[in-house]
């Protein structure tokens, strides 16, 4: 493991997420919500991970391990625990950005499933997003999905 990886890895503890894992966990939670990974969602996930400032300098191996950790948490502990651990790993300065990215992903395949709405509600509560910001996100991403 490189120096940067060891700084970023959150010590490798399975029960604690760092900021990077928190971000990845929230995005994977929303992608997995309806039990179907669409091509659009995978492209959006890849783009979001590649672009994120908080993941600058992370190696491909680190990203793979981070995704594994999040998916293992989802498999063994369930969606609520994945969202709780992810929220705990995130810092307040990125709450709105993470929520907006997750919301964008919900609309990325042009359809919003009831299960995705339920997960978005949980993410909104976990990140303490105010109603107005959530409404604004829905309006903007709905407009994008009309293109």
């Amino acid at each position, binding site marked *: 493991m490189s120096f940067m990886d060891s700084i970023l890895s959150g010590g490798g503890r399975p029960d604690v997420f760092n900021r990077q894992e928190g971000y990845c966990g929230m995005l994977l939670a929303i992608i997995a919500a309806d039990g179907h990974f669409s091509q659009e969602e995978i492209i959006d996930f890849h783009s979001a991970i590649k672009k994120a400032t908080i993941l600058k300098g992370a190696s491909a191996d680190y990203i793979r391990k981070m995704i594994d950790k999040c998916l293992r948490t989802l498999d063994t502990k369930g969606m609520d625990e994945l969202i709780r651990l992810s929220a705990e790993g995130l810092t307040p300065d990125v709450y709105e*950005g993470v929520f907006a990215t997750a919301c964008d992903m919900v609309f990325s395949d042009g359809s919003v499933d009831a299960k995705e709405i339920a997960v978005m509600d949980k993410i909104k509560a976990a990140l303490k997003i105010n109603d107005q910001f959530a409404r604004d996100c829905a309006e*903007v991403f709905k407009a994008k999905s009309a293109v």
Partner: protein
Amino acid sequence: MGLFSNMFGGGQAKPVSFNRQEAFMGFLLAVIAADGVITNEEILDFYSATNKAQVLQGLGQNDFKRIIDKLMGVLKKQGLGEMLTLCSLGTTPDMKNGVFAYCCDLVFSDNNVDPNEAKVMDRIKQLLNIDDAFAEKAGRIARAKASV
């Protein structure tokens, strides 16, 4: 008109118009080209946007290449201002807010908004008649996403 003008139609540019697909991609390219630098983040966002957009569904690789060639031709020969005007004429009212939101994402995608990019966004807002409230929301949300 001289011999070669008659033969090749030179001298008089054929009037250009854009359909919805060309207009959407034209706006995205205009934002990317605005600061003269194409970043990795912008390419990722461009790829993501063109893959997702309903208006581009079913477009083959050849169609995609043809549209890019047409847009780049207009950009080189007629300039950014004219390209934006043509894009706005090809955009239908139902897609205006969404196109603007996509452009906002691209502007913030490398976390750095250049004055030239800001100018292009102002022009796009004006051409698409985007109201201030929606523009503010789209900009704020794109900025929040870029802060992660």
